[in-house]
């Protein structure tokens, strides 16, 4: 009976292990931090790591499950970040509670990114081919430039927004009333943000993201999306609306990216749009590819290791990127090259039998 129930929920042990691992890591790190064992530098990395894990999970939904490439995922993160910051800074007096304000900001960031994802998906997801990659690439760059031109302030009268397209406007042009503050100052980005993101919030959002993504994959909708990835023509022939299900998956993916962005933006008192450039999109893509396409646990591990590694290697100075590159190559070989994987499996025979067990 219990066996049958497990089969019905459609969640293999691996899924539970993902939740468990994330929770265990959170408890361990919180304990270490409480004991004063984490360096100041490591403490600063905690929230960004959470953000990049969410980003990796989000992008894995697009790339691994839907089978489409998004090269501008940082653009959605950026939208989430700046809309989150604007909301949070505007509500500082209205909602004094930091935690509640964080929740509202993240929700708004998610909605804004979801809407952007919907607008992009509307024309692009109808097409066959790599158009999503091209359009999201352009989207990431456009969003960066637009936010670089954006000047936003808030005072008793509400929000003031101007676009500094000609480069001749400053914060003074906002005409802020007494006591008003500038939230986004053009190319300088968001400045003077009250940092309200916490590691606990990051942990909770990772759990929510995992819950959404894993449950999505193991549902009717998720099966439809995977079916489209595996064979579009066959999926259509059994009555799966390709456009609709791609859209659902993509919008969920961009929503999660928006959440990650809001969390990220509210972790720094200063952040500029240049932070969310093409390199950031590629960095997240690297996490996804190295962690394994469609492998959520892999994405979490890859994002954590590969984000912390360059920071942890700072002591090695010039050799830092060299070692980072070697690690990347080794991970790639270990996960994607069958010969090297067999070699690893032969060296560690225990793991092989364990894998055989889970496969059944």
């Amino acid at each position, binding site marked *: 009976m219990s066996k049958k129930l497990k089969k*019905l929920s459609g969640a293999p042990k691996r899924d539970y292990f993902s939740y468990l691992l994330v929770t265990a890591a959170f408890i361990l790190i919180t304990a270490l931090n409480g004991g004063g064992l984490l360096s100041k530098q490591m403490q600063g990395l905690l929230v960004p790591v959470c953000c990049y894990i969410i980003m990796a999970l989000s992008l894995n939904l697009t790339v691994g499950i839907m089978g489409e490439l998004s090269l501008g995922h940082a653009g959605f993160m950026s939208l989430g970040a700046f809309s989150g910051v604007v909301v949070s800074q505007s509500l500082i007096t209205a909602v004094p509670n930091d935690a509640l304000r964080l929740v509202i900001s993240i929700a708004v960031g998610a909605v804004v990114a979801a809407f952007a994802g919907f607008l992009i998906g509307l024309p692009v997801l109808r097409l066959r081919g790599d158009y999503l990659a091209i359009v999201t690439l352009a989207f990431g760059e456009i969003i960066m430039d637009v936010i670089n031109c954006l000047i936003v302030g808030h005072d008793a009268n509400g929000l003031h927004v101007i676009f500094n397209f000609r480069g001749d406007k400053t914060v003074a042009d906002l005409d802020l009333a007494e006591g008003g503050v500038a939230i986004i100052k053009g190319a300088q980005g968001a400045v003077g943000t009250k940092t309200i993101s916490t590691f606990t919030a990051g942990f909770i959002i990772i759990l929510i993201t995992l819950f959404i993504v894993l449950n999505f994959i193991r*549902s009717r*909708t998720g*099966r439809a999306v995977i079916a489209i990835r595996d064979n579009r023509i066959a999926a*259509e*022939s*059994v009555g799966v609306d390709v456009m609709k299900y791609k859209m659902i998956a993509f919008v969920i993916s961009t929503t999660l990216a928006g959440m990650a962005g809001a969390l990220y933006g509210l972790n720094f008192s200063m952040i500029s749009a240049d932070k969310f450039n093409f390199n950031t999109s590629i960095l997240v893509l690297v996490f996804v590819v190295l962690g394994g396409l469609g492998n959520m646990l892999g994405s979490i591990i890859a994002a954590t290791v590969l984000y912390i590694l360059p920071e942890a290697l700072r002591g090695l100075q010039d050799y830092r990127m060299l070692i980072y590159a070697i690690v990347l190559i080794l991970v790639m070989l270990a996960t994607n090259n069958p010969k090297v994987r067999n070699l690893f499996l032969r060296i560690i025979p225990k793991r092989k039998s364990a894998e055989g067990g889970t496969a059944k």
Partner: protein
Amino acid sequence: MREFEKGKMVPMPSTALIPERDLGKMPVLECIHVGIEFGGLKAVEDFNFTIGKTEIAGLIGPNGAGKTTVFNMLTRVYNPTHGTIMIDGQDTTGKSTVQLSKMGVARTFQNIRLFTDMTVEDNVRVGLHNQMKYSTASGILRLPSFWKKEKQSHEKAMELLSIFDMQDMAGTKAGSLPYGAQRRLEIVRALATEPKLLLLDEPAAGMNPNETGELMENIVKIRDTFGIAVLLIEHDMKLVMGICEGICVLNFGKIIAKGTAEEIQRNPEVNKAYLGNNGMEE
């Protein structure tokens, strides 16, 4: 609604369920002057054809005669440039492949198209996509409707797989199945969409005589238990002549003969198309 929604469809006594053969009254498929041109090349021309509600029909012809093109027009992968196709009395003009599936046309493919990375059971469950519905939100939040429908779709998938005794393979990846089993899985997946008309594109390709014999029995069994019409493309004449009640022969995109197995075998045009002129003059 159709019969098999009421309860278990397998096992069910064979032939008991066949509704009256009202070929003339209400054909499930009606093609009227259907044709398609690709940039001036007439791939199929003036295709007139009807299939009754529980008929097994065959579409044969030499390579390149346009048989698969006909299937692609029936499922609206291609849009015919001439004529109309009616499914169960409804015009299909302007409909999409997905809508055709909902109208009751299911197909298999000549070159197998399974969801290779999914399990056998999940392949069938994708086929049940429009039969077992619940919203994306209830799937993510695991609301009661998710558990209820997932349970139903699991049971239905197993029931459908039992047609070909494939329940044991439910957890295997579809891509790792042997060739014959992949062909059978495609048929099961097509049946999961609850079709009125099942299109089989070379179902016996690559099968040995034993497997083909089994397949013939199964096609008849499927027709009998589900009460649906079957149209099949096949080069194995033993299968076509053995089970098809009506046969249509295509050559160079035109119908050259229609009739029962005996009529087709005696038809001089057909012999000419298959054997060439010399074969006839002997």
